[in-house]
């Protein structure tokens, strides 16, 4: 079988020495992690490997020799290298050799034991696969292949061949800790041998994160304890809190911040990404909120807004009045039942009149309220948008009331009609059996039933028209609120940190690998370059999407149409598990 040797590109120009790495027998592949240079003492090399093996749980061993012929006629080195095979025994023994100034390498893999199958050669064919050690170390495969835990050595199953390579390199950080400026007994060559990579900012952030997390965690727990106190559980307040979307948003943000600033370390890279995403999302939110705040408070825009608010509400109420007058006349040429029309129309007009008076009563305080509410935009753009959605809901409360009245009337009418229609045909709804049964009625029951049925039937168009008009208005308001909620959800759930990472450091999020065949000569081993195939942006969004507030409409279009037809009230923001009347 062809033996695959994974060789790091940083060691391709290193001096001659020993190859150190891990042998994966299931895929007959040798993952070379570093090169040990001369001079070395074999005992010290073995000690280093044992130490690394214990620290990283990776079966690191000496795999073979590496010969980089810088000068011509270095035959003595060749014999010396062959002699090393006796000291460090490994099965199979790899011998890689590179000529000076040549791109092509020569590779040999010898097995000392006699092959069990006759006819198989004692020497294996070798295929070289170059990999960038730093990128493979830092990258994460998606979907994460769960390699089973192993106690010691390499008892890892061969599930996911290339995942084993990534896993080996990622776990061997202990081996890469020393660089060439260290005065250790053994001189290694790997990706960090020119100098260990570190960043001052990262170290400072790590030191500072402990106390900051403690402080902020304490503050947040105080806030959540205050919000959970008994006063807020009483009936009027708890009802209001549950209806306002601002409170939902604040609670969601509080949960997220508690998660980020908890003193527990992230268990796996996914949790770390989640924390980073939440942090970046909160920063962006607050930044946009502050920008909005500065825009609002500059040039006294709040004052203009407050001044414009009452006339707008008045205008809306006036339009509604015109609409009701139109319905009370002959709307679209339809002939309504005059009496019912007048009753309904006057009822709604009176309601509207009450509403206008209420708005006029509130008008002196509007500017003050708006100013204070505008300050809350510093908590984030999402909070500001939620407040906007709540203000819209409060200002269109009369439309909601009209919708409820119209819907209830219509629903009653439909129920009555369906029941009396059954009577008309001589049938009855059997509650015990939950089905329609035939029933013999008395003459006076039939008479009154048919009369009522006729009355309800001929009054249906009027009620239906009022219901239609107010439902359309209500749906319009719900659509506007829905748009705002979609925007808030977008800001809440977009994984900005992961998207930025995919843009700037694409090798960190890997969907797989890709190979490129390098220049090839006959009779020379095949050379391939293994590169990281980054995850597409759509997959990044899907994998790292933050959980939104859970306010998805639970109805499908079919059930929505059914509810509208039968006059049942629709609550677009109600979740399945909520207990409401």
């Amino acid at each position: 079988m062809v033996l695959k040797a994974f060789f790091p590109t940083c060691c391709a120009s290193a001096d001659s020495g020993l190859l150190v790495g891990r042998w994966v027998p299931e895929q007959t592949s040798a993952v070379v992690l570093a090169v040990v240079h001369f001079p070395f003492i074999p005992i010290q090399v073995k000690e280093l490997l044992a130490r690394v093996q214990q620290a990283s749980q990776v079966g690191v061993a000496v795999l073979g020799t590496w010969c980089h012929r810088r000068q011509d006629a270095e035959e003595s080195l060749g014999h010396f290298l062959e002699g090393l095979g006796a000291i460090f025994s490994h099965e199979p023994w790899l011998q890689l050799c590179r000529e000076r100034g040549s791109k092509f390498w020569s590779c040999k893999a010898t097995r000392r034991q006699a092959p069990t199958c006759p006819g198989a050669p004692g020497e294996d064919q070798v295929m070289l696969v170059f990999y960038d050690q730093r990128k493979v170390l830092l990258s994460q495969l998606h979907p994460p292949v769960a390699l089973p835990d192993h106690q010691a050595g390499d008892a890892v199953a061969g599930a996911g061949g290339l995942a084993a390579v990534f896993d080996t390199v990622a776990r061997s950080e202990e081996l890469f800790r020393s660089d060439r400026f260290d005065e250790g007994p053994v001189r290694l060559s790997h990706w960090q041998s020119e100098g260990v990579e570190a960043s001052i900012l990262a170290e400072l952030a790590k030191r500072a994160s402990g106390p900051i997390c403690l402080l902020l965690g304490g503050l947040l727990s105080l806030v959540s304890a205050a919000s959970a106190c008994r006063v807020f559980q009483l009936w009027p307040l708890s009802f209001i809190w549950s209806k306002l979307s601002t409170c939902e948003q604040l609670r969601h943000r509080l949960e997220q911040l508690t998660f980020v600033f908890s003193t527990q370390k992230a268990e796996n890279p996914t949790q770390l990404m989640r924390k980073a995403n939440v942090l970046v999302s909160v920063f962006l939110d607050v930044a946009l909120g502050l920008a909005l705040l500065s825009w609002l408070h500059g040039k006294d825009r709040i004052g203009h807004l407050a001044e414009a608010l009452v006339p707008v509400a008045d205008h809306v109420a006036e339009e509604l009045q015109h609409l009701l007058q139109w319905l009370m006349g002959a709307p679209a040429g339809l002939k309504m039942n005059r009496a019912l029309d007048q009753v309904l129309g006057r009822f709604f007009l009176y309601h509207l009149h009450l509403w206008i008076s209420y708005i006029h009563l509130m008008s002196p305080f509007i500017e003050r309220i708006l100013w204070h509410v505008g300050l809350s935009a510093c908590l984030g753009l999402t909070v500001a948008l939620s407040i906007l959605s709540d203000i819209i809901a409060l200002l269109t409360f009369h439309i909601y009331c009209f919708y409820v009245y119209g819907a209830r009337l219509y629903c009653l009418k439909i129920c009555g009609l369906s029941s009396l229609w059954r009577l008309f045909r001589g049938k009855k709804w059997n509650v015990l059996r939950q089905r329609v049964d035939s029933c013999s009625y008395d003459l006076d029951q039939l008479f009154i039933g048919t009369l009522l049925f006729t009355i309800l039937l001929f009054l249906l168009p009027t009620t239906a028209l009022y219901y239609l008009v107010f439902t359309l208005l209500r749906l319009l308001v719900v659509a506007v609120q829905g748009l705002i909620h979609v925007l808030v959800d977008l800001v809440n759930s977009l994984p900005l940190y992961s998207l930025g990472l995919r843009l700037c450091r694409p090798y960190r999020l890997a969907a797989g690998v890709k190979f490129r065949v390098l220049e090839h000569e006959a009779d020379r081993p095949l050379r391939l370059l293994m590169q990281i195939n980054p995850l597409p942006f759509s997959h990044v969004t899907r994998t790292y999407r933050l959980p939104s507030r859970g306010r998805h409409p639970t109805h499908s279009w079919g059930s929505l149409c059914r509810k509208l037809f039968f006059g049942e009230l629709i609550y677009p923001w109600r979740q399945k598990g909520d207990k409401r009347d």
Partner: protein
Amino acid sequence: MEDEQSFSDICGGRLALQRRYYSPSCREFCISCPRLSLRSLTAVTCTVWLAAYGLFTLCENSIILSAAIFITLLGLLGYLHFVKIDQETLLIIDSLGIQMTSSYASGKESTTFIEMGKVKDVIINEGIYMQKVIYYLCILLKDPVEPHGISQVVPVFQSAKPRLDCLIEVYRSCQEVLAHQKATSASP
């Protein structure tokens, strides 16, 4: 060893198949699709601009003309970057896996690599495509749960759609490599 041959696709367009034999265990097949023709590009641009000019004479708003130019440019860039595939490559490496690369006209490359452990077989299958019945080459993936089952069928050369003669060439070479791999893996 390199080799180039000319075939045709299911619509009659010309395709060029390039074969590279690096070693008995590693082969590469590259199918180049016909380039974007100047005729179709000119036709589409003229239609869009004539329509825009017609709207302009109706509405007397010059924004329509600039919007038409903008739309044409963006549409062309989007088409070259996301739709038009110039070359499709299949690289089969014994004991590593099979890699499929599509290169778009704007230079973007999208690669998929399937490990050899997941590959069950490479076959030519018949399928219904619009109003035709066509042959296509596909890779069968093993089902991790059931040893003899197939979990997925991955079609190859989806945008080039070569005809059966080209597919037979590729199929024969792939089967040689797979047989070589099975033979060497059978012996420990």
